[in-house]
Structures are given as C-alpha cells and as structure tokens.
C-alpha cells in the first residue's frame, strides 16, 4: 500500500468534521461511511485528530501490514504511548510480534476447528433444546434476549469453564470494554461507575482454581505446564475470551436474525439447504459488521494515495464501511446468500484476525440449523431498536414473530 502511489505526492488529505462516535452516527453510520469512502483513501477526522480509512482495499492493507500499523499502542483511540491503558493491555489484541506470537499460537490451537469438533454435538443439542423452550413459551418475542443472548450465554461460559454465579457481569463488562476503544463520550461515562465490580468479577474468573477442570480456560492454563506461555500470561488470555467472545457473538447472531426477518426468501433458502448457514453467517457479518471499528498506530511515515501520514498517528479503520464498499462488493447493502462473502474484514485480517471466529461460526451454525429445522418463517413484529456502543453494532430489541412447523 505504501509502495503504490497514486496521484501527486504529499497531497493534503481530505477532512471531515463528523463525529462517528455521536449517538446519531452510531445509530446510522452508512451515509457517513459512504462520504468517507468517497472523500478518499484517508480522511482526517478533525474532531479527534485521527486519520480514518473507509475503503475496503485501504482497510485490508492496514489490517495486514502490522509492521507499519501497530496494535501495541492500543487498538482504541487512546494512545498507550501517551496515556496509560485503563487495564493491563491484552496479550493478543494490544500486542505486536514478537510478544503476540506465543499467546496467539496457544489460543489458535485451543479455539481451532479441530478442537471445536468435540463441542459440536453438544452445542447442536443445546441449540435444539433452546429453540424448543422458546417456541413452547410463544411465537412472538424479542429475538435479542430469547435467542441472540440466550444461546451464547448457554454454551460459551460453560465452554470456557466459568462458574454459574456472577455470569451477569459478562455482558456489561464486554459492552463497556468495547465502548472504551472509542472516545470518553456519553457511553463511556455511563458505564464507568459500575466498571469496577464487573472487571473485578471477570479478573477473578481468570485464575486457575476459579475455572472448571476442562474447557478453554483449563486448556489455556495447561499450556503453562508445557511452557508454551507463562503463568503470568494465562489469566490475561482467559480474560481475552471473556472480553472478546460474548458481546461480539451475541451481536452477530442479532445481525443474522434481523437479516433473515427482513429477507424471507433467504430464510426459505436456508430452510431448504441448511448447509447455507455458514455462508449466511459470514454474509451477515459482512453486512452488519458487529465490530465496526478498530484503531492502529503508525510505526513510521506511510504514504497512502499520495498522502503522507507521519509516524505515531492514530489510524481509525472502519471495518463496517470496508464491508460495504461498492468498489469491492456489488449491491453491498443487500443480504444475499448467493454472494461469496469470503474476504470480508468483519473478523479483521492478518495476524490479529479473530482467533475466536471458529467458535462464533459454530455457535451460529448450531443455532441457525436448530431454528431452520423447526421454524417456517421469521418476520418482524415491531420496530427493532439499536443498542449504541462505540465499537459494536448491536440491537437492543428485535421483536420477531415465528411460524413453527406444523
């Protein structure tokens, strides 16, 4: 990306006075994303003095070029070189090679497709049981609480090996964490007072003796016995699962349920071919990008489209915009099961690409196939409302009406 120069060298970059972290743009970012993409490959956001990328190619290149765009200065707006992070930085998300190498290798194995195969039968059975329970209670309900939240909360904490008490801390912790990647706005201020109790519980669960003897948590600790990571690293790696693995998946499931409710022909297609569930889930992630943004920091002067960005600048990558860039996707606003969503950046790309993506896909496939087996139609039963978060795109409520098979 830095090698290929287009246009005159050292142009000044376009600027925007928009606030992508305002309630208005968080609720409806698409027009702003389009303006961003149209303005250029890099746009200066005056309000925060950061450089933003909205086009697919540019975002993809920045994600993969970890040498020029580092994560260890924080993947939120805060620059760890200038202000200390509010919690000990993540050993994965907020680390560069070589520090990133060992924790990544360990988690990749624990959360890899082959390791997950052992969980699959149980998760499918859990999904079928959940769908039965929900339908037994009624056919009109809020799909956020009854399905999108209920399923991950049923399977994921068990898979990690968390105890029952206190699991209610998971959602507010994750929600606040993802808010803190943005500026200290109304969302961060709202969550800050209750943070200590949530963070306290989360940190306690990361200890070896707080975790069940089997599960992802135990697997992480077992890696310390082999010397693959240190005992000091293990709790922070368990914390990564609790931070990054709950809200993201819930919002992704909300995204796909909303997409199916809006697109009855897609639901019919899934019903007739449940094997479409995998592609459908990634298409929903492309369309909605549950993780909308992450930041990087430049490690050197880089040149993009003739614009020189100095070393040490915060770069805001709009994954959600890249995933709807018409330069890359035709009719990008459409939920289209015939599209090949491969290459979307909803899970990121490169060395930090979501290490939990196979977990999320397995959860989604289990829930969707269970639903497809019992539910003929899904339709909206009211106007859904947005849940605002500085990083995540989410539904607060998603009223749906299902027609079960007779």
């Amino acid at each position: 990306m830095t090698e290929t120069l287009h246009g005159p060298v050292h142009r000044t970059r376009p600027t925007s006075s928009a606030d992508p972290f305002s309630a208005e743009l968080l609720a409806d970012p698409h027009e702003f994303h389009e303006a961003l993409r149209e303005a250029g490959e890099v746009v200066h956001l005056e309000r925060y003095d950061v450089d933003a990328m909205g086009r697919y190619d540019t975002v993809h290149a920045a994600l993969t070029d970890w040498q020029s765009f580092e994560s260890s200065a924080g993947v939120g707006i805060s620059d760890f070189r200038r202000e200390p992070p509010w919690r000990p930085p993540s050993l994965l998300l907020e680390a560069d090679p070589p520090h990133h190498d060992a924790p990544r290798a360990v988690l990749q194995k624990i959360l890899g497709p082959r390791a997950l195969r052992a969980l699959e039968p149980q998760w499918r059975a859990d999904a079928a049981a959940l769908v039965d329970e929900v339908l037994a209670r009624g056919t009109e309900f809020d799909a956020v609480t009854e399905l999108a939240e209920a399923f991950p909360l049923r399977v994921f904490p068990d898979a990690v090996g968390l105890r029952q008490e206190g699991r209610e801390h998971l959602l507010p912790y994750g929600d606040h964490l993802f808010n803190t990647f943005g500026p200290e706005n109304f969302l961060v201020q709202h969550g800050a007072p209750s943070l200590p109790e949530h963070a306290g519980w989360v940190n306690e669960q990361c200890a070896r003796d707080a975790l069940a003897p089997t599960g992802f948590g135990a697997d992480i600790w077992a890696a310390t016995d082999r010397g693959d990571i240190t005992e000091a690293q293990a709790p922070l790696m368990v914390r990564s699962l609790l931070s990054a693995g709950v809200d993201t998946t819930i919002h992704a499931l909300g995204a796909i349920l909303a997409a199916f409710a809006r697109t009855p022909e897609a639901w019919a297609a899934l019903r007739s071919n449940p094997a479409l569930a995998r592609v459908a889930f990634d298409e929903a992630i492309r369309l909605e990008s549950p993780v909308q943004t992450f930041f990087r920091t430049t490690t050197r002067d880089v040149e993009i489209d003739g614009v020189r960005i100095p070393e040490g600048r915060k770069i805001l990558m709009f994954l959600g915009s890249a995933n709807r860039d018409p330069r890359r996707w035709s009719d990008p606003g459409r939920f289209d099961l015939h599209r090949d969503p491969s290459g979307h950046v909803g899970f990121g790309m490169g060395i930090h690409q979501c290490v939990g993506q196979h977990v999320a896909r397995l959860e989604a496939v289990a829930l969707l196939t269970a639903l497809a087996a019992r539910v003929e139609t899904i339709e909206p039963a009211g106007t859904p409302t947005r849940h605002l978060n500085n990083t995540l795109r989410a539904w607060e409520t998603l009223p749906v009406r299902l027609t079960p098979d007779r």
Partner: protein
Amino acid sequence: MPNDSPRSPVSADPAAASPVDRLVVAARRVVADQVVELELQRPDAGRLPDWTPGAHLDLMLPNGLTRLYSLLGDPRDASSYRIAVQREEHGDGGSRFVHDRLEVGDMVGFGGPRNNFRLVPATSYAFVAGGIGITPILPMLRAATVLGIDWRLLYLGRSPGALAYLAELAGHGDRVQLHCSGSSGARADIDAWIAESPSDAKVYACGPAGLLDAVVRAGANRRAGWVRVERFTATASGPARATPFALEIAGTDRTLIVEPGTTVVETLRIAGFDVLTSCARGVCGTCETEVLAGEPDHRDALLDDAERARGNCFFPCVSRSRSDRLVIAL
C-alpha cells in the same frame, strides 16, 4: 535446515503447480563454506505470508524435490524470505541442486511457512546450534532481544569457515560461545554448557541428530517443554504433483478436475460449490475441509506434522493433492 531425505523427482515443474505459491530467487550469496543464502520474493514483490521465529518453508524445487528450510530473516520484512542451504554431498540432490543449478531469477514453489519449533516465553534462553542449524535460531535471538529476555548461544561447527553469520553474531559479545571441533580436536562439553544454564531457562537446539541427542540427554532433568529441539524428520510422502487431479465431492455424484494453476477453492466455486474462505493463504483455518480418501498436498501454515500425517483434513485455499484422486466432504 538441511533435509536431504530421499524422494523421487517428477517430470514436470511443480513450482508451476499453483499460481499463489511461487517465489522468485531475488538474491543469492555464499555465507560460509558450502552454505548459500537465498533471498526469495513474490514475482510481483508483494506481501508474503507472515511467520514467527522457528518457522520453516516447504520449498518445491524445480527438479521436483520438496525440502524444508528454516526462515532466518526478520519477520518484520514482509517482502522477502531468507533461507540458507548447506551443500550435502551425499544427500539425494536437493542441496546440490540449490548450489549448482538454482540461479537468481529462477522460480520455486512453496508451502507454509509453518512452525513446529516455536519460541515460547521464558525467563532466559539457552540456544544450541550446530552448523546450518543456526538458521532458525537467528530470528529467535532477535526476538529474545526485543522481548528483553536474556539468552546465550553455543554455536558449533567443524571450522570457523563453516560457521555462517559470525559477523551478525559478533555484536553479542560473550553471550555467544563458538566451538569448532576441527581446530581444537575437542568435542564441546554439551553437558557442562547446559548445566551452566539457569535451571528454568528454555533450551532450544537445532543441528545434527547427534548434537540434538546430546542436548536432550543433558537437559533430561529439566521440565518437559523446557527443552525443545528441531529434528528434520524426513516426511515420507511422494513428490508434489504438477499434473491435474480428480476431486470427488462425497455425497454428490460430482468429480471435478483440478488443473495445475488453479486452486481447489477456485475449482469448487466454478463448479457451483460454496466454500467460505477468509485469508485465502492457509493461515486462518476458515476453509478447513474433511478429506475422506487420497493424499492431500498440504501447503497451509496451520497443521503440524502429526496432523498432516493423519491426512483427514486440508485447507483448499492453498492445499492440493498428491494422489490422482482426492475425496472430500463439503
């Protein structure tokens, strides 16, 4: 890392087997007696797959041989790989081919990089390198330095002239101990050197089998996982193929022909099958596919040797088939 295990050559050019995994020899230089270093790049000088210290490349030579070579450069350099090849006079010809025939501008095929010899965190490291076994150790030394973890290196060879990269190592002062059996006639005292290393140090060794055995013996009283050696096991699989193969999709009556020059994923998509990929480089694992019959030609960066040997899954974004027929479940 030398690996002149016996393998029969194939007729056509396996480097041409797939469009995505070809490298051009961008530079070559002699770095010690009988050791040449190659710098490999994409033909378009584009970004190469990421790797970590200890990783190796599966290199498919134009003469049909597949060889494993440790990457010795800097993972921060995304546009070139560096490997070093020692001439093995009595090998089966892989290293002789590299030394005598491979020239700047020639193309080679590659798979990976894969890492079976990962650098794991430690309170300190004790590295032992024998001859060309220095190659995976070099990036480890740089990583350890960046991580701020203390290390020492014992570097053994026949003669000073046989030891590559001495200039690079010179800057590290007495952290590096050289030992040449030729000059003094004396064998290095591996037991003593390992015993001198802190008891919780992680020990890494790469080199000839005899040296590795000595290191393992010397470290026998250390915790399992605290002593790690890279053995160049000769994989017994046949040569990479450069001819089309049949891809059977279980549960359907479809058999597709995968031509050299197209990937399995492309072939499947053209035939109307949905295969979800993400990185398209054998790194992320999204396209993992079950293999029911046939022998996959693994080019991914994910499976370790044991998983490869099992042969029951592969990554069709980069991997192919060694057998005439490969049966997969989608």
